[in-house]
């Protein structure tokens, strides 16, 4: 069997032709006969009891289908980890934009006015919008104490380290909300049939999440709910859990009206009402030797989950586990909590907690370096995890990773040392202050701990009548290359041509549950299963004598055709089995958190403009070790795209809140970089095979989100010498800090700023 090197080359994107010709079909491109349009009536206040709902007299309400909580056949909830989030608020609202009622009408133009014509009278209650407000418990808005979840990770003996430390370095770091801003807004079409049940088509990442939610909401059995993914125009986590809500809404309207119903959000609604990255606050207290070695520390990691639990416990988990980063902590205590506020629930966004805790850590490492009096490079070298050492959860690093070497390579690629010297000299003369900053980090691929075992993912491959094979998975394509890479894997495994493999549309009626398309797990976990299932197809054909140990692609196709002709379509199924070495203690939160880590060192070069206080990123090196790179162009595209989102997180993307409602919910006012704002992002890979992934691949989708913010902010701090500990970092913030520094300098009569740490001795 002859492999033509499909894996490892940049084959054409499977659905690429349709995308470049305008033929790709997204949910809003589809219309069904007799279809109506739906819209959502939402809360205008953050918290309160609903007293009365008034329907304005100008509207011909009899033409509209109106759905309220009482129309829900099953349970009024969007089932996820908990059932606490209502599908429609019933008597009580807990965040602005919370859905109250649903309307449908055949003429979509009549909906906005109808929505506006519904006015709600509330008994307002005091609302909370910040982590600190939630913590005071002046208002308890969820459970007994506003706390969705806590984790405690403990390793070694934290109490002992304070005694022997030469320095104790403290710091507090915060990150703001970030909007996923997929260019295609959320949308769903639902249809109900008494016999077939509910079918929904939409823009989504996880068909089976929606399937589960609709079963509970509609009170329908599994075979009466069908979820079909359409071409999806970007997701980044923003379509992981939220689509269950909009699907639920469309389904209810479809059930009540007996007609298909399409709901498509416009940009303003999508921005204001749907999930965002969890805002976070991390507090570090670290015991360090005079050589800069970390002895141990306490990390307090807190995220703002918004009004309902949704996925906050999982975001918290990942953020907490990543809080110690790529370093060796002999002792550590990580206290993590997710708290409730009266904001629209925050949700999944690429990185999923890790960008938040890693921002804090990588800023903190630079801070430690400054206190100890060594360089940002040295502090990292002296603390990097090595093969054989354990992470904060006591996972043994088994692979042959050499972070020192990775750092060296990144420094060389970026010209770090030469530039640092050059900038120091230039900054004395030039007005633009230049700086260069580093972030070193890791990202665990796949679900945490026993998560993959609980998912119990299943894939199937089908032998088809035309001799090709067809992949059946619930893993979805939304730009990251799922379809392409899974087909590459199967083609390579079976010795077929890339064109001999196809992949079914993600339709819960057709495909098994291979788990959600999240957590950078698709290539690594699902890819491995798909590889396994492919082998099963080959075994079937071998067993029937139609092919031997060695065969050509043509032989295979012939054999497959014959098999189908004789016996009908045949399937090979593969189900996930946890590798023995992945052992995890859910109680103590200890053990092998992830089957594989990807590692990275990013270097950012910036100029801070003295006239505008604006920051331009002039060069960016993204070096990562990601196992085997299965498709170079796709991998590079993922890294560049993620880096740009990370730069946005650091410098451009600020959600302006007022009483829990996003004020800048338009593309004019929520700023992402344009093509004119970015340098070339220089992407490089190291490859260290991963035994758990298909062809040695690890996950890469989220990794690039973790590094840019700290690298960029470290560079800014290098440039202007003022510590910045929050993102987004806007020119206005830089200006304010420089003002303060100038003011306190003149007060103190010197250029000394306040000390950064308490020195122990």
């Amino acid at each position, binding site marked *: 069997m002859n492999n033509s090197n499909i894996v490892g080359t940049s084959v054409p994107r499977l659905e690429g032709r349709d995308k470049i010709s305008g033929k790709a079909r997204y949910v809003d491109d589809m219309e069904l006969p007799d279809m109506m349009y739906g819209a959502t009536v939402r809360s205008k206040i953050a918290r309160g009891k609903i007293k009365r709902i008034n329907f304005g007299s100008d509207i011909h309400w009899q033409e509209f289908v109106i759905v309220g909580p009482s129309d829900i056949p099953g349970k009024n909830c969007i089932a996820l980890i908990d059932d606490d989030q209502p599908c429609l608020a019933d008597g009580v609202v807990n965040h602005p934009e919370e859905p109250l009622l649903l309307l449908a009408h055949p003429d979509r133009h009549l909906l906005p006015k109808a929505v506006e014509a519904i006015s709600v009278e509330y008994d307002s209650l005091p609302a909370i919008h910040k982590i600190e407000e939630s913590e005071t418990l002046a208002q308890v808005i969820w459970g007994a104490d506003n706390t969705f979840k806590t984790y405690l990770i403990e390793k070694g003996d934290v109490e002992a380290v304070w005694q022997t430390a030469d320095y104790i370095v403290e710091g507090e770091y915060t990150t703001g909300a970030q909007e996923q801003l997929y260019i295609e807004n959320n949308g769903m079409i639902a249809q109900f049939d008494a016999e077939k049940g509910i079918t929904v088509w939409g823009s989504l990442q996880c068909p089976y999440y929606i399937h589960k939610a609709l079963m509970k909401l509609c009170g329908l059995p599994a075979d009466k709910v069908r979820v079909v993914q359409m071409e999806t125009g970007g997701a980044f986590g923003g379509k992981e859990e939220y689509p269950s809500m909009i699907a639920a809404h469309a389904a209810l309207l479809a059930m009540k009206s007996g007609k298909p119903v399409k709901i498509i959000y416009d940009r303003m609604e999508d921005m204001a009402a749907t999930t965002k990255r969890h805002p976070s606050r991390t507090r570090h207290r670290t015991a360090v030797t005079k050589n800069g070695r970390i002895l141990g520390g306490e990390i307090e990691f807190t995220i703002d989950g918004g009004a309902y639990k949704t996925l906050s416990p999982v975001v918290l988990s990942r953020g907490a586990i990543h809080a110690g980063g790529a370093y060796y902590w002999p002792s550590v205590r990580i206290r993590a909590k997710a708290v409730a506020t009266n904001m629209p629930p925050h949700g999944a966004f690429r990185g999923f907690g890790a960008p938040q805790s890693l921002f804090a850590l990588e800023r903190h490492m630079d801070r430690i370096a400054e206190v100890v009096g060594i360089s940002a490079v040295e502090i990292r070298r002296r603390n990097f995890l090595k093969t054989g050492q354990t992470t904060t959860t006591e996972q043994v690093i088994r692979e042959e990773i050499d972070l020192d070497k990775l750092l060296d390579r990144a420094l060389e690629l970026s010209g770090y040392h030469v530039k640092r010297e050059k900038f120091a000299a230039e900054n004395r003369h030039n007005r633009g202050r230049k700086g260069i900053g580093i972030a070193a980090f890791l990202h665990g691929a796949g679900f945490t701990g026993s998560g993959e075992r609980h998912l119990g993912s299943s894939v199937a491959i089908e032998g088809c009548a035309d001799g090709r094979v067809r992949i059946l998975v619930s893993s979805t394509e939304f730009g990251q290359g799922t379809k392409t890479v899974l087909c590459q894997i199967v083609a390579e495994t079976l010795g077929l041509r890339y064109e001999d493999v196809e992949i079914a549309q993600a339709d819960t009626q057709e495909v098994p549950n291979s788990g959600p398309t999240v957590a950078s797990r698709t290539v690594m976990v699902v890819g491995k299963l798909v590889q396994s299932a492919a082998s099963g197809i080959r075994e079937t054909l071998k067993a029937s004598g139609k092919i031997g140990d060695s065969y050509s692609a043509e032989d295979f196709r012939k054999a497959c055709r014959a098999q189908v002709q004789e016996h009908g379509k045949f399937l090979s199924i593969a189900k996930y089995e946890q590798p023995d070495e992945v052992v995890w203690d859910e109680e103590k939160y200890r053990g092998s958190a992830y089957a594989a880590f990807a590692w990275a060192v990013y270097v950012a070069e910036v100029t801070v403009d003295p*006239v505008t*206080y604006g920051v331009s990123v002039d060069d960016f090196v993204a070096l990562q070790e990601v196992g085997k790179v299965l498709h170079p162009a796709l991998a590079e595209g993922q890294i560049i795209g993620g880096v740009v989102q990370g730069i946005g997180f650091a410098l451009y993307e600020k959600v302006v809140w007022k009483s829990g409602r996003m004020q800048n919910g338009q593309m004019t006012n929520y700023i992402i970089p*344009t093509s004119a*704002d970015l340098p070339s992002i220089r992407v490089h890979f190291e490859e260290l095979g991963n035994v758990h992934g298909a062809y040695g691949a690890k996950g890469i989708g989220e990794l690039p989100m973790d590094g840019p913010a700290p690298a960029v902010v470290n560079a800014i701090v290098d440039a202007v010498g003022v510590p910045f500990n929050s993102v987004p970092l806007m020119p*206005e913030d830089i*200006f*304010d800090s420089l*003002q303060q520094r100038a003011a306190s300098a003149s007060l103190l009569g010197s250029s000394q700023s306040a000390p950064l740490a308490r020195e122990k001795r």
Partner: protein
Amino acid sequence: MRAQPAEYELVVPGSLPAVLALLAESPGQWLPIAGGTDVMVQYSAGNLPARKLVSIWNLPELRRIDNLADEIQIGAGCTYTDIRESEVIHREFALLSTAAGWTGGIANQNRGTIGGNIVNGSPAADSLPALLVYEAELLLVSKRGERRVPYSSFHTDYRKTQLAADELIRTICLKKRFSEYYAHTRKVGARNAQAISKVCLAALGRLSNRVIEDVVLAMASVAAVPLRLRKTELLLRGKRIDRPLTNLARTTAAAEVQPIDDIRSTARYRAAVAGNLVAEFLEQLRANEKAK
């Protein structure tokens, strides 16, 4: 899309006299729409109060550029692309050329018009500081006739102008008196393209042996209307450029502007940056003379 198209009327009279006749017949009833890059955004958001619109897009009388002996006349219906592609504007009134390239992306530059930019009256509009420093005059036209007004007094308050209910801007007139001046402009936005300005400076200066013979300064986004910095100009005229003067100009400009806190930025940032922009201009003015 939050508007109901059935509730709106749009007419396309097709000629300037026809449009003016309609405006005269029912003053204040018809909202003129040229390229629509402002009006249609409001419309889509469900925020357009007007229900009747009259198209003035591509009217030949308004979409022309005339190069006269002593002035250039730019039709109010000229798009930003028309302005960018005009060699004579680029040569004689470079600040306007540059500003036209800042406004939105290419697609919006192909539709947005200079007249629309003025009448929309946003103090953040990119072209307006350039028009102020070039001391533009506007030809306003109605069925009643024509009048010529200095642009400097055209904006009366936030999004309010001197335009009468039956009038349109026909032409923007720029006198060719600035070839001896050093021209400088800089826009500060949230990103390098497609950004509403936080502060924007247009400046002209004439230096002779380090003495500022004349200086003209105007800014966007620092007041309710595009602002001419006359106090700062007064401070500078006739003086010799040196570091103390530049710093004084910085603080004077920072104090002269009246910015606010809004969704994009803060008042204190805008004031400081306004001062910095003026200082930067003076440094470049000086450097430019040195280089000659």
